[in-house]
């Protein structure tokens, strides 16, 4: 149980503020990014009519999420937002699944990763809303249905960022804790691999999907 909460930190002094960087998470994130780049390179290298394995996997991701984006945003906007949605899903999915490889662990296990992804989605959604509706109509939406609801509407918008990032973080961290505890209780016999498969592959996959869909839905709500 000692490994809970043991992390490698880099503390940088920046004019009085102490900025703490969690090095493990940075390294893991870079592994995910490089893995995605390599996957993308090989999946798109030799495109054929009869696709190979990697190309099929890549096309499944692109096709599925393109059609989901099209359903939510319409044909025109799907062209500009689908690449972001597809990339977001693949990034979160790889982040969640990397924990299945021994000695690697999920970047999403650290609140900073989901929070920054959530903030990114928030900024993109509001940018899309302003661009689509114009600034006046965008602001007017906050005074709906009555003007004094404005502060509560703003809190509601901020709470979306909190809920989307804590949901991913809580699920991944909860899975890690459960696997760790059960491994200790049964002396690492028999059960842990199955539990690991359930929490990392199954729950990780579902949560990656939920995270992406919610980002998409938040954009759709701002746009309409």
């Amino acid at each position, binding site marked *: *149980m000692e490994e*809970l*909460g043991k992390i490698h930190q880099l503390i940088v002094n920046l004019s009085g503020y102490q900025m703490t960087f969690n090095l493990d998470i940075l390294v893991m994130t870079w592994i995910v990014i490089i893995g995605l780049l390599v996957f993308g390179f090989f999946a798109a290298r030799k495109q054929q009519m009869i696709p190979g394995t990697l190309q099929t996997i890549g096309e499944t991701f692109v096709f599925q999420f393109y059609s*989901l984006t099209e*359903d*939510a945003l319409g044909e025109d906007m799907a062209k500009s937002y689908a690449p972001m949605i597809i990339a977001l899903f693949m990034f979160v999915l790889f982040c969640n699944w990397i924990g299945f490889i021994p000695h690697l662990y999920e970047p999403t296990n650290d609140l900073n990763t989901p929070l920054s992804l959530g903030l990114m989605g928030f900024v993109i959604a509001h940018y899309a809303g302003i661009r689509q509706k114009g600034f006046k109509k965008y602001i007017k939406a906050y005074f709906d249905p009555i003007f004094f609801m404005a502060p*509560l509407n703003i*809190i*509601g918008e901020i*709470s979306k960022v*909190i*809920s989307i990032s*804590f*949901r991913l973080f*809580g*699920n991944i*961290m*909860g*899975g890690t*804790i*459960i696997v760790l*505890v*059960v491994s200790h*209780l049964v002396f690492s016999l028999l059960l842990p691999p199955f539990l690991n498969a359930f929490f990392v592959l*199954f*729950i990780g996959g*579902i949560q990656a*999907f*939920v995270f992406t*869909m*919610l980002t998409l*839905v938040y954009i*759709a*709500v701002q746009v*309409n």
Partner: protein
Amino acid sequence: MMSIDIEAWVKVAAFLGAGLSMGFGAIGAAIGEGFAAAKANNAISENPTYSGDIIKMMLVGQAIAETAAIFALVIGVLLLFAAGGNVSMITAAGLIGAGLSMGLGAIGSGVGSGFPAGEACAGLARQPALSRSLTTTMLIGSAVSQTPAIFSMVIAFMLMFINFSGGSPHMVAALLGAGLCMGFGAIGSGIGSGFPAGQACVGLARQPAMGSRLTTNMLIGAAVSQTPAIFAMVVSFMLMFVSFAGTPVHPTSAALIGAGLATGLAAIGSGVGSGLAAGAGCEGWARQPMTSGNVLVIMLVGQAVSQTPSIFGLLISFVLIFKGYAATEVFIVSTALLSAGLCTGLGGIGAGVGNGQVAESAVSWVARNVEQEAVLMRTMLVGQAVSQSTAIYAMVVSLALIFLV
């Protein structure tokens, strides 16, 4: 003042914990088994020819629904005879916490696993030939509904058998909070995972060809419904293992109990709510197999939004646990922190259930009228956003109680 030595307090705590564990733990299983029996009676009156099979199915289902109560019995017996090796107030708190965790945590799973048992009996009356696959689905469904009770049992074991007694005096509050958090937190998810399990049995009797795909959807829906229980488990862990040595005992202790209550209570509503959406998803898959992809998407989104109140609870718990407090002997601050936890916790119950109702209806209508998927999704999200507002008010009041007092 009575003078009671600490050894006696540990015994008192063990006995109290055993009573709490078995007392609360019996509630859910009894309701669940009653539901199964009622459905079985109904089924026999509809199709008396197969009464033997139905009774067999009922007995198997009830035996499984009883698992949660048996967990509570095990913890109760262990508390009576095996626990309490170390003599300190922290051990005593751990024993009460273990009783609360297991007792409260067994309620939801008991009720929840009654649903598949009952619906399997009803399905058997409708489709006697499906007896084997109905039994399989029921067994998987009940087992999935037991997961929150298993989380509670794990926490109860840790509270009983890990030696916390060397810790700082805050541990008394922290262990009580951990027990309350896991206990309350498992109620909603237990009941909630029962809905998809029950609807999968209904659907199987209606569309036998969908069998294995219904099981898949049931597993997805139930797994997502268990997220609130996982949040409660995370908070329980933090309460047990984060070291509070060096922080002042007085306001911190109240904050720790408040942290447990915030996530635990808020998880009740979210668990039930996401379960409602998952149940509608299973119903939709059986009713309209063609639309299963659309139903899955709206089900997952609806469930995720239903969980927002429990995430507010998680946030308040984190704030309560990690905010540093100035030492004070005045009990006003302690009251305010406890009240903050209660406020977000209770405030999340209604919003969670309400969001779940909206999602349930949207999911079942997407299955029936798939062309309107986009409109239904938008209406669902607007409806949920509005019914969440009371949970947001509760969070605002809690934050005011924490930071302005």
